[in-house]
Each structure stands twice: as C-alpha cells, then as structure tokens.
C-alpha cells in the first residue's frame, strides 16, 4: 500500500471532523497563553500571567469549590438511588415496574428548560429559598436515568445464576447483594458516579433557574461572559478544567469498557 492510498477521502473527512471538534478547544488553550486582555487576533505574545491571576481569583475559585462539592453530593445521591432502582428493575418483576421505568427515563427526554422552571415553581410554592441544595436536587433528577442505564447494563451483562448460587450456598439476599452483586457492578457504579459528577460540574440549563446567591462554576462563568476584561482568566480556567475532565472521563470510560 502506498502512502498516497492511505490518505483516502474517508481519512481526510475524519481528520476534518476531528479538526472541527478540536478547533474551539485549541482556541481556548491558545488564548490562555496570549499576552492581551482582548480575546482577538492577531495574538500578542506568550504569557503565563493569566495562570498566575487564576490563583488570585477568589470568586472564581469559590465557584469551582461549590461545583466540586455539589458534584460530589449530587452524584452520590443519584448514584445510590439510581443503583437501587436498577437492582430492583433488573432483578424483580412487580406491579408498577413499567410505570416507574417510564417516569424515571423521562428526565432524559424532557427539555432542561422545562425541568428547571418546574422545579423553580415547586420550590417557590413551598417557600423553599433557592440555594446550592435546590441546584443539587435538579442535578440528581438529571443524572438518575443515566446512572440507571449504566448500572442496568452491567447487571444485564452477568448471569443472575451467580447470585442464585450464592443464595443456594446459604447467603441471605442482602449478603449476596453486598458480597456478590455490588462488587461485580463496582466498575459500572464508579463510572456512573464519575459521569454524574462531570455532568453536574458542567450543568447550566437547569441550574440557572435553581441557584441562589452561591454560584456554581457554570453559573459564575455565565455571569462573567458579559465582562470582556475578565474573560482571559475564565478562558485559562477552561484550559485547566478541560485537562482535568479529560483525565477523569478517560478513566471512567476505561472502567466502563473494561469487561
């Protein structure tokens, strides 16, 4: 095979798609090193000052911290409840199973704006002030269907006879659950948690309606988009967050595919 035939139309097309997908990300990285407040061409020169300024941006770092802890808490709740639902749905037949499945899958097919305003109205009707907790509730609802899918796929992927064998040998149902079923599902549960965390960390469309005075990172970013002078620091943070989330999600993807 000659080198020429390797660069077929298909390869060129694929390269073009990858370039299209990476161009905006490359822009963010380039501007994080650009020695100018304005995010415009031509570039002015190399600098690390935005990375330095990032360390002093207290409001921004506070939003990062909020998003981090919110992500952990919301993902823990979503992963726990989603895993319980997946266990019940995949291993038992009971009245209302179909209904539960339909309702639990719905957040996936409902526009986030509808989910956001519906929760806003609920909290307002109950006089519950908006805070990070109300944002967290929104994130749990958004994440539950995905957790269920990931864990259910794992439960479908290994024979229930393993659990039957454990119970035949004298283990109770709950012993079997904690000693056999959950350990086998552990990679999927961890993957579900990480996927929830990254969703939560980046979620804006629902959070916008539910947040109070404490901002999550996307809420803070959105509020900063109107102030061009603060954008270089935001862009620099983007470069950092990007690298962190790629590492995290590659790990989660690796866990999910390791069968």
């Amino acid at each position: 095979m000659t080198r020429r035939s390797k660069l077929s139309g298909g390869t060129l097309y694929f390269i073009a798609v990858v370039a299209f997908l990476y161009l905006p990300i490359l822009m963010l990285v380039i501007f994080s090193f650009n020695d100018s407040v304005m995010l415009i061409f031509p570039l002015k020169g190399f600098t690390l000052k935005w990375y330095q300024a990032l360390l002093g941006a207290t409001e921004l770092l506070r939003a990062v911290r909020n998003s981090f802890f919110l992500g952990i808490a919301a993902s823990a709740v979503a992963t726990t409840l989603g895993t319980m639902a997946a266990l019940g749905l995949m291993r038992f037949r009971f009245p209302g199973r179909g209904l539960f499945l339909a309702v639990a899958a719905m957040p996936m097919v409902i526009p986030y704006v509808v989910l956001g305003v519906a929760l806003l109205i609920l909290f307002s009707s109950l006089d519950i002030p908006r805070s990070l907790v109300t944002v967290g509730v929104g994130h749990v609802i958004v994440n539950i269907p995905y957790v269920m899918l990931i864990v259910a796929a794992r439960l479908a992927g290994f024979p229930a006879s393993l659990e039957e064998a454990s119970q035949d040998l004298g283990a109770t149902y709950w012993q079997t659950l904690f000693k056999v079923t959950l350990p086998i599902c552990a990679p999927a549960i961890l993957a579900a948690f990480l996927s929830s965390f990254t969703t939560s960390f980046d979620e804006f469309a629902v959070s916008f309606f539910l947040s109070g005075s404490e901002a999550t990172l996307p809420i803070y970013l959105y509020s900063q988009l109107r102030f061009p002078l603060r954008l270089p620091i935001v862009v620099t943070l983007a470069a950092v967050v990007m690298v962190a989330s790629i590492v995290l999600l590659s790990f989660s993807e690796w866990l999910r595919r390791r069968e």
Partner: protein
Amino acid sequence: MNQRSRIAVLMIPPALLLLFFFVLPMLVMGSFSFRAGSFGAERQIWTLDNYRDFLASTSFQRLLLKSILVALRTSLYCVVLAYPAAYYLVFRAGAKRSTLLTLILAPAWTSFLLRILSWKMILSSEGLLSSLLLSLGLIEEGRPILLYSMNAVIVALIYSWLPFVALPIFAALQRIDKSLLEAAADLGCPPWKAFLRVTLPLSLPGVAAGFFFIFIPTLGEWVTPALVGGVDGVMYGNIIQSQFVSALNWPMGSLMSLVMLLLMLIILGALSRFAYLLPLEEAK
C-alpha cells in the same frame, strides 16, 4: 413477603424522590398555567386567560414552529455529518477504532459554556474567521461572520451534538454482520449497492436513535441561542426562560413549558418503537 420487602427497600426511596422532585413539579407547573399571576394574591386566582392568550398569539406559535424546524435541521445535519465519520471508524480505522472514537468524544467533556464562548471568539468581528478572510483579502474590514444569527446557533449546536450522534451510529454499524457484506460482494453486488441495500438499512436504528437524541434537547435549547443567536436566533426555550426571568409571567411560562412537554410526549409516543433504541443501546 420477603420478596416484597426487598422490592420495597430498593424501589421506594428512588420512587419517592422522583415523585416529589419530578412528578410533583410537573403537576404544580400544570396547575400554574391556570393562575392569574406569578406572585402574591394573583397567584391564588384561577383563570383560563393564559390559554386564550397563547392560542391568540401567533408569535408564540410561529416561534414554536421555527424551533421545531431548527431542531429538525440541526438533527439532520448532525446525522449526515456524523454518519461518514462513524462509518470510517467501523469499516476503515482498523485497530485504532476505539482510540479514534475516544478522540471524537473527548471534546464533549469540556465545559459546554466555554466551548460556546470559543465559537463566539471564532465568529466575532475580530475573530478567527474574520481575521482569516481579512488577511486573504476576501473582506475589506473585520466583521462578525455568522455570529448573532440562527445559523450561528445551528453551527454551535452541531458542534455540541456531533459526538453524541456519532456514538449510536457507530454502535449500529459495529453490530452489522460483516459476512453479509462479503456475501453481497461474492454474489456480484457492487460496493455502493451493498451499502444502500445492506449497510444503510441495518444502521437505520442507530441513525434514528442519534436523530431523536439530538432533536429533543435542541427543541428545548435556550443557552446556545442566548449566547450566539442574537435577535434572529431566538428559540422557544428563550421565551420560556424570559417568562421566568425578565417578563416574570410564570403562568404563561408554565403554559408554554406544558405545550413543549406535551409536544415531546406526542413525538415520543409516535416513535415509541424507536424509544428502546435510545441510549439503552449505547450502554450495552
């Protein structure tokens, strides 16, 4: 009895959560569409005025129709652009297939807002595209290319969704039994005909899954149009958002959300035979 208590322990907590924070909000939102005002005493008054206003407002209906068309176009472009890439991965990429798939998916893992901001930097008057055209002498002065238009919204949405469309198409193509294609070739079928008669029909479930996986969130999109759409790029979701944030007409916003919700359920009901193909497939 034992069986029942196990089911109860596993299912009641998630069921309660969904009931309180998903079903109940939808019901409260439904009841809000009959209220006279957003706050105070007006909130307690029941009325059908919102329904009358909505039905009388051609601008709301036009906007809904426009958003449906934008969602259809975006989904269609996404599928058309993603299909060859997924095809390339499955049939041409060989051993590098899963690495290249991860390469396609990775951009989706970076901050959504900042990727949209980056598109603003590309399309703005002193942005990448404008500077490029300026230096090539194709335009006289820096000006926004595409920015603040419906096309900018569509470009940014295609950008956001492309990886998610490629995934189900990839999964469907990968499941095709390659011996079918060999059989077609042995029987003298030219490759393009084998593609049209074998590969394409067998991959359609993945295409449909990708299409609707994009169509639904795009129809309700409000963030992307708010950032790059300008006046021309306003979508139905933006009007809902503004009813709650600037217009402070919660009852009308509730009604508009309800209309969108019903529309989604009708579309999903009509496509229920595809519904099982949605992300369940990729999770496998």
